[in-house]
């Protein structure tokens, strides 16, 4: 029993020491999202604006009948920006690529008619960066670094559940804290139940 207790305590601590940047990021980003109105009043309504970074003539040749994903990947690789992205064709025939770079998201617009490629970067805003961090997840991008991040998010979820369960275990082991601990737990659970029933 002593051995199990020690393993639980050490795992609780070392998981937290390793994952503390994730905890901090999720805490700060949630605060930013909970107070989005403050940022709207500071920066104004609407999406974050883009500023032009580069404009060039793209002289690459695409394979015959190339799909949008093939074209976007080739363009991104050519300009050294390969990574997770979304792509669509606009009504005027231009290809719009949204490169989901975490720190500096970019929009690339390729016009096949005159082979112009315009690269724009999103204006830097701390709340937008935190929100991108918070919302980044999923295994669908096909890029190894994104898949690894998705694994880290899953690991973080498992760690949260473990912190709850191991925290309860450690609390129960300290007899002197049982009364106040139970009062805290029941108070929290009662308030949570009230919200569940009324909100």
């Amino acid at each position, binding site marked *: 029993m002593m051995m199990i207790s020690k393993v639980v305590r*050490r795992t609780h*601590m*070392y998981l*937290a*020491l*390793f994952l*503390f*940047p*994730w*905890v*901090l*990021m999720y*805490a700060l980003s*949630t*605060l930013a*999202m*909970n*107070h*989005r*109105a403050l940022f709207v009043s500071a920066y104004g309504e609407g999406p974050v604006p883009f500023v032009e970074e580069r404009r060039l003539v793209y002289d690459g040749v695409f394979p015959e009948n190339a799909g949008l994903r093939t074209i976007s990947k080739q363009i991104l690789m050519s300009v050294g920006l390969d*990574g997770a992205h979304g792509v669509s064709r606009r009504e005027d025939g231009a290809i719009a690529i949204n490169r989901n*770079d*975490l*720190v500096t998201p970019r929009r690339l617009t390729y016009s096949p008619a005159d082979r112009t490629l315009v690269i724009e970067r999103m204006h830097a805003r701390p709340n937008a960066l935190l929100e991108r961090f918070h919302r*980044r*997840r*999923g295994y*669908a991008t096909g890029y190894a*670094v994104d898949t690894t*991040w*998705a694994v*880290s*998010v899953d690991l*973080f*979820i498992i760690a*949260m*559940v473990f*912190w*709850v369960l191991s*925290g*309860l275990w*450690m*609390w129960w082991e*300290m007899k002197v*804290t049982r009364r*106040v*601990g*139970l009062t*805290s*737990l029941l*108070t*929290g*659970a009662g*308030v*949570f139940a*009230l*919200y*569940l029933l*009324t*909100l």
Partner: protein
Amino acid sequence: MTYSHLNRRLHLYLGMALLPWFFMYAISSVPFAHNQFFEQRDAAKGLPLWTLRAEHTIDMPVPHDPAGLRALGETLLEDAGVEATSYGTYRHSPTQVNVYAYSFWTSTQLKYFIDQKKLTVEDRRFRWDHFLTGMHARGGFEQEGFLQLSWSIVVDIVCVSMIVWIASGLVMWWELPGQRRWGWVAILAGTASFLFFTLRL
């Protein structure tokens, strides 16, 4: 009571009181992280997500300012007989305004088709993954009402508590000299991994 004692008790009792929120945020992250799985699972049932409850004929001017639009949403909800604890009003297109009324358990959508002078009321089928993600995403100070505002304050308290857990946890780790070396390894490895993701994602 020593500082160390106080620090330990703060770490513990904050955790006990906020345990339902922390657990809820953990469990509700699963449908966010594995959205495709839940969508495919639900699509296989072949059931419609929204069901038409009622249709009304109305003719109302649509204000452009956010406060006016929200007031219109409230009026539309009243006219349609929809009781809502929380709602949002959105200009879906130049000819359509949507009002989304929700609680943790139910969601109702009103669509006002301006040019057709028509208002439809639709109810969303209950889904456990939507229940969890709805709870996870609930926050902000735009809603009226004491309970709505107090929930958002609790969300703030949970966030601040997470920062307190980091700080108090670091203090507790430092008080265990035998764990310092491996503790540093864990901190540096975690920080390096996080920085790697920040720069490469």
